[in-house]
């Protein structure tokens, strides 16, 4: 490692102001800091610091996404070979390899487009490159149907990073979850590529119906797969969202390490469950008849609850606020799913709406604290 360090120290001056490649300073520093935690010591304030930093934090989230990602890759292949009726003649690695080859371009496009914009805007603003995109870049392909055209993915990613994040000042300043913005962008701009029956299974023969369980119900076809398929995720859907089991493994990693908020995660599920019970009593649409527990396994509910709602930047920041925020996400997600069959995927909207309302929730929670302090003064 010493020779690598020496090499970096030698080429470093080229990237400083006045150097040959000064336009790449942010990029260089990002890569340097990626390889070596900087030697910067504390000069004021505490003399010692916790070992955790933003890179570690984001790396843990990516790590937590791994089970869902790996399963998603397998499921791409699985769904494909089921649709072509070849599933009994291929082995595990053939299925996985097929999924990998299909999924890889999505990841590459997401990271290349997103990181290029991140690096460029860091250089323009004279900032350091933020780690937030490590997670966003992974989330975007995971919430896309495998059939999404790559150019659309590129446009959506650019939209989300520029208008969803950089215009606000980068990671930590954004109002909406960038990954969900990318999805919403495609959903509204190219609805045929984000819903229907033709995008969820890669290279599907036309005769095979490729609808997700949720879109099946919209067609009046209340044929929920059995619990095993639903829970472990052998159903068509966005790449990462299908396996509730793998998502829960990720949830466990996030909760044990303390990166994600248990308060939000728990209350999303609670809110969703309560709303499902309520709609069970009604007969508004076909969706209202889905058993409450299965509502939580369908669509992107679990994935949203674990990886999207818990985004600390766009969510509520106070303790009480987190419970309210999470509960309302769960509630709204099921409500949207049930009352509006055109948007069975209520989770995306629920989170985006609550992203918007999170500061308002916090405002009232903080004001309760302020009032308490004022009251003390009067007594």
């Amino acid at each position, binding site marked *: 490692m010493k020779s690598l360090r020496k090499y970096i120290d030698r080429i470093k001056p080229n990237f400083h102001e006045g150097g040959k490649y000064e336009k790449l300073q942010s990029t260089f520093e990002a890569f340097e800091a990626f390889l070596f935690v900087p030697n910067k010591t504390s000069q004021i304030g505490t*003399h010692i*610091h916790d070992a955790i930093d933003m890179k570690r934090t984001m790396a843990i989230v990516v790590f937590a996404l791994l089970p869902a990602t790996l399963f998603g890759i397998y499921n791409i292949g699985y769904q494909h070979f089921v649709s072509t009726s070849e599933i009994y003649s291929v082995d595990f690695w053939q299925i996985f390899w097929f999924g990998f080859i299909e999924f890889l371009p999505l990841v590459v496009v997401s990271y290349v487009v997103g990181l290029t914009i991140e690096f460029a805007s860091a250089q323009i603003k004279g900032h350091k490159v933020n780690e937030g995109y490590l997670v966003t870049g992974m989330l975007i392909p995971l919430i896309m149907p495998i059939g999404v055209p790559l150019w659309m993915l590129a446009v959506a990613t650019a939209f989300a990073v520029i208008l969803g994040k950089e215009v606000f000042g980068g990671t930590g300043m954004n109002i909406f979850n960038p990954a969900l913005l990318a999805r919403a962008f495609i959903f509204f701009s190219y609805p045929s590529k984000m819903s229907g029956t033709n995008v969820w299974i890669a290279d599907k023969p036309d005769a095979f119906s490729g609808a997700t369980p949720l879109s099946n119900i919209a067609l009046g076809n209340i044929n929920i797969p059995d619990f095993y398929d639903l829970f472990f995720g052998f159903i068509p859907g966005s790449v990462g969202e299908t396996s509730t089991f793998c998502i829960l493994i990720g949830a466990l990693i996030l909760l044990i390490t303390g990166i994600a908020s248990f308060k939000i995660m728990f209350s999303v599920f609670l809110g969703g469950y309560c709303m499902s019970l309520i709609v069970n009593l009604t007969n508004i649409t076909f969706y209202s008849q889905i058993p409450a527990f299965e509502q939580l396994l369908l669509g992107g509910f679990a994935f949203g609850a674990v990886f999207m709602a818990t985004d600390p930047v766009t969510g509520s920041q106070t303790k009480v606020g987190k419970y309210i925020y999470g509960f309302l996400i769960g509630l709204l997600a099921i409500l949207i799913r049930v009352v509006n069959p055109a948007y069975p995927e209520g989770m995306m909207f629920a989170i985006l709406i609550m992203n918007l309302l999170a500061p308002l929730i916090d405002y009232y929670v903080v004001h309760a604290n302020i009032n308490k302090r*004022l009251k003390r003064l009067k007594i």
Partner: protein
Amino acid sequence: MSKSKTIKIKKGLNIKLEGEAEKIFIKEDLSERYAVKPSDFKDVFPKLDVKVNDEVLAGTRLFHDKKNPEIVFVSPVSGIVEAINRGERRRIVEIIIKADCEIKYEQFEKIELDAISKTDLAGNLLKAGLWPFIQQKPFNLIANPEDKPKAIFISGFDTSPLAPDYDYILHDEKKFFQKGIDVMSKFVSDKIHLGVNSQFPISKLYTQLKGVEIHEFIGPHPTGNVGIQIHHINPINKDEKVWFVNPQDVVTIGRFAEKGIYDASKIVALCGSEILKPRYYKIINGTSIKNMIKQNITDNKLRFISGNVLTGKKIQPDGYLGFYDSQVTVIPEGDKYKFMGWAAPGFKKYSNSRTFLSSLLPRKKYKLDTNLNGEERAFVLTGQYEKVLPMNIFPVFLLKAILANDIEKMEKLGIYEVCEEDFALCEFVCSSKIEVQSIISKGIDMMIKENS
């Protein structure tokens, strides 16, 4: 003595570091040099009363505050003024005294507590340079002798990393401690509030005191911070002032009342992973640490701190002890690159989060260096600060109000109740490496300006 029920504090963090001082006393030979540093006192503008080469006694005034000329700062030892070091914009950094072999004291009147009025008492303490030991909250300023404080608080224990054990330090000082309490009692009508640690049997020194109300606390750092204790006993509101004194300084005040001299001797813990033999030292306030660390440190590149690792000030190896400090900590500098440090499993890394494998291992003590372990970022994670701040305050909202220069909001969110030291753990655990204490400090400076 009267007693109330134990206050349990759950939030906070005890950072277990290597190098705790063993309970062995070393009586240090008189150091050659001593210093008084105006930067130890917030919002004081020093005006010199001595020149280089002037002869001084212990208790001779060196400088006073331009804004409050009655607040004077005196020499801790007798000798000659060797140097007056200035920094940026000719600001006085330190006044260095070369000490005599034996200390000669300026003689002040002894204090007859029954006969003396409050004003005269304050006058005596002011004249002899003991007044700066009495500080006020909000903002940790030197108390204003004309104020009438709502209450006086003493925290009888320190929970910060490697902190000295006051029970041990004050062991033989019972008489002067009581005398100091008696002096302070003159300034308030109520009893003096004394916070004690009920995790261990409470020191007899404290239980036998007269004129104090004991509050038992149990919990991790920052429970020992007087600001945290005040917040739980009787929080500060706008326009209110409370005073507080460090236990060792109570002893110094008591000694002055008894003997009429400014005897600034005190005991400090010399600690930290890089000290070969961490021990307690009997020294005089403002001493150079040069003799203490001689042949007692490792060969690594080191950081010398007057105070603890969270709130102390960086000093040179021949630097001087801060006015209010009771410990000197020496830890390794961390100016090294760490290859893929963020991705390592981290068996030896210390984190309050559970993102490193070290959290699975029962490890007793850690050796931490001064590396930031990352780069500064915007606020991202939430709930981190709340875990280590046992106050009914929204830390991030307060910090953002300060960054936005919004004084009204700062007041509403509790700026009067906080000080830098209370937020030190927030800075330690911050995954965005935000300089929390300097932001709080900036807010406090704004409030001082606003209120003056």
